[in-house]
């Protein structure tokens, strides 16, 4: 059906399908469990019965293959940075990143340290930044709702149809990465 394949933006034939997909995606954002530090406790608290993230369709999945959102709760150290990038690359698209807490946004209380990466956006493409130290569960909830707005307004039919592929952060020095350096330096990824 040439009229659909050649379109660079969703045309009228696909708007309903597109709306359905956007609704489905935004209402079931699954988080990948990458808990590192203090903010991960508040992420757990958000999973508890008082804040209950399950009511917005979100829960924590162990495997990056089964999740949509990578929440970075806590500081990113230089040793951990390639791991986060690798986990992000293992997630199936469409995928998003939330930087939770001041450590993930700019390095936070440890910004002058020798082993910190000053912000998650140096190694990952961040979609939502949630300030706080630690971030209250309500704030994380609000951040997820903001992400939901972003997801609900992003179409993956038409212009953004091709998957973006392997994400290689521009500023990840190879000496941090050890044996992962080759993996990240490859173009187009492997069969992952």
């Amino acid at each position: 059906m040439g009229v659909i394949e050649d379109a660079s933006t969703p045309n009228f034939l696909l708007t309903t399908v597109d709306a359905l997909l956007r609704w489905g995606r935004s209402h079931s954002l699954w988080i990948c469990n990458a808990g590192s530090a203090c903010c991960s406790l508040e992420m757990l608290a958000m999973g508890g019965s008082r804040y209950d993230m399950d009511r917005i369709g979100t829960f924590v999945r162990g495997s990056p293959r089964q999740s949509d959102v990578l929440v970075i709760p806590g500081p990113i150290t230089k040793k951990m940075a390639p791991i986060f990038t690798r986990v992000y690359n293992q997630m199936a698209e469409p995928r998003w990143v939330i930087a939770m807490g001041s450590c993930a946004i700019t390095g936070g209380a440890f910004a002058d340290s020798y082993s910190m990466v000053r912000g998650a956006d140096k190694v990952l493409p961040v979609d939502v930044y949630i300030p706080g130290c630690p971030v209250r569960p309500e704030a994380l909830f609000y951040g997820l709702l903001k992400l939901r707005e972003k997801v609900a307004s992003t179409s993956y039919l038409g212009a953004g149809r091709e998957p973006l592929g392997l994400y290689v952060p521009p500023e990840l020095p190879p000496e941090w990465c050890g044996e992962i350096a080759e993996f990240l330096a490859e173009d187009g990824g492997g069969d992952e």
Partner: protein
Amino acid sequence: MTPDLASLAERFGGTLDDAGFDPTIRVPRENWRALAAALAADGVWFSDVTAVDTGETVDVVAHVCASRSEQITLKTALSDDDLTVDSLVPVWPGVEWLEREVYDMFGVSFDGHPDMTRILLYEGFEGYPLRKSFLLDVEEDG
């Protein structure tokens, strides 16, 4: 039973300093393991092994307990041109990771240690952060 610290200090060519909060025995580096072994034979157990960069020397410090409420501090001074000392792993096996951390942070090598590698920092890190000569560079990018 509290070991006789004064005679121990003398036996290993060191000094006993009673002025601080805990008695401190300072020995030359050659007798570091022998001092620890003598104390361990008396039933003393370890609490912590760390180091301090005093500016002129790097002092390896061990905090040990003669009883549940008595602490003793052991020190040996290492100079910059030879940052090696005997490992205490044969005496107290649990210091293995503590000595790895001292190596990681100060560059002190422990002879006889089963696994002398960095423990907290990534493999390619250059420098030993807790040395006073290692400055925090806030302008560094990344």
